[in-house]
């Protein structure tokens, strides 16, 4: 029973180190961020100490969209690391730059207070429940990152975003450790 329980817990783990390695392998140089409690200790804190990245701490999430766009004109890759509330606050910027201008805006979005064992669309929290439908309406591909097995989605999705010049969103449903 104990061994089985341990195995189940292991499957439910999400490694921050593996996510960071996938981000680096995707050619991301700039991390643009407003802190998010879901990704705070598992992603943002180690990224801040990692010389492979240049971390730009911004005051409001829509700034990230403009900065990423400006970097794109020099073929520099950037990833927004934000909370889903900041995504919701940045919809107009994402609409303009990512969707209408067709630019590769890459977003890693922590789902605040999300139950990682439920699909986001079934969350009791309204703010979490509406994220995927909004992304669908905007035509932005999105990937749920809740388990270690999901990390393999990151690099191909970022490469595809830059190859096709379109946005992509990763929804982090569990606090990485």
């Amino acid at each position: 029973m104990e061994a089985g329980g341990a195995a189940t817990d292991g499957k439910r783990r999400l490694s921050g180190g593996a996510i960071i390695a996938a981000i680096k392998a995707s050619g991301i140089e700039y991390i643009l961020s407003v802190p998010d409690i879901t990704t705070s200790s598992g992603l943002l804190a180690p990224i801040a100490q990692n010389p492979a990245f240049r971390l730009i701490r911004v005051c409001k999430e829509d700034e990230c969209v403009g900065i990423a766009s400006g970097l794109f004109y020099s073929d520099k890759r950037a990833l927004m690391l934000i909370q889903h509330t900041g995504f919701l606050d940045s919809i107009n910027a994402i609409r303009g730059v990512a969707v209408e201008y067709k630019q590769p805006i890459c977003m890693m979005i922590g789902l605040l207070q999300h139950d990682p064992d439920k699909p986001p669309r079934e969350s009791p929290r309204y703010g979490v429940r509406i994220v995927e439908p909004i992304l669908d309406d905007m035509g932005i591909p999105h990937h749920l990152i809740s388990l270690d097995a999901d990390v393999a989605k990151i690099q191909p999705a970022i490469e595809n975003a830059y190859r096709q010049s379109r946005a992509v969103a990763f929804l982090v449903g569990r606090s990485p450790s």
Partner: protein
Amino acid sequence: MMKRDECFRVLARHITNEAVVATYSSAVDWVAIKPRVLNYTSIGAMGLDISHGLGLALGQPNKRVVVLQGDGSLLMNLGSLVTIAAVAPKNLVHFVAHNETYEANGGHPIPQRNVDFASMARSAGYAACYDFADLDVFTQQVAHVLEQDGPVFATLHVEPSKPLFYDYPSLYDPAKRQAFKAAWQM
């Protein structure tokens, strides 16, 4: 009080290979005065112009970026002053045309007409900040403003202009974005 187009004519004499980010009324005036491939007028949402400018400056640290922003746009992204001061790009010059109105949206006043943007930028930590309300003084000092290490901030106190024609399809032309990208990487 100056006129924005007069300020931009003075500025244009000093612009060579810089990227110039300009939006709304400032963009209309600027592209009429200085049409060129390194004008950047697609910013996607009001207030984001200076954030695009920061990204451009980071991407090409050996080239200079000049942002021509309106006061209404800066008010929508005031936190950007703090972000930019923290990043401290030496190659970024940030002008704000302070005409005290949302000129592109009917000429309604901004919430506080006499807000002191240069003091805000100074408090945020910009390397140098200026206030210009006299065209002769601006003419005399603009070269110095453009040449020094940034981030540099300058308020241009200007009158609301005569009604403008906002040719958004041209300002947001995807072909211009592509041409800008090619020229910016040369």
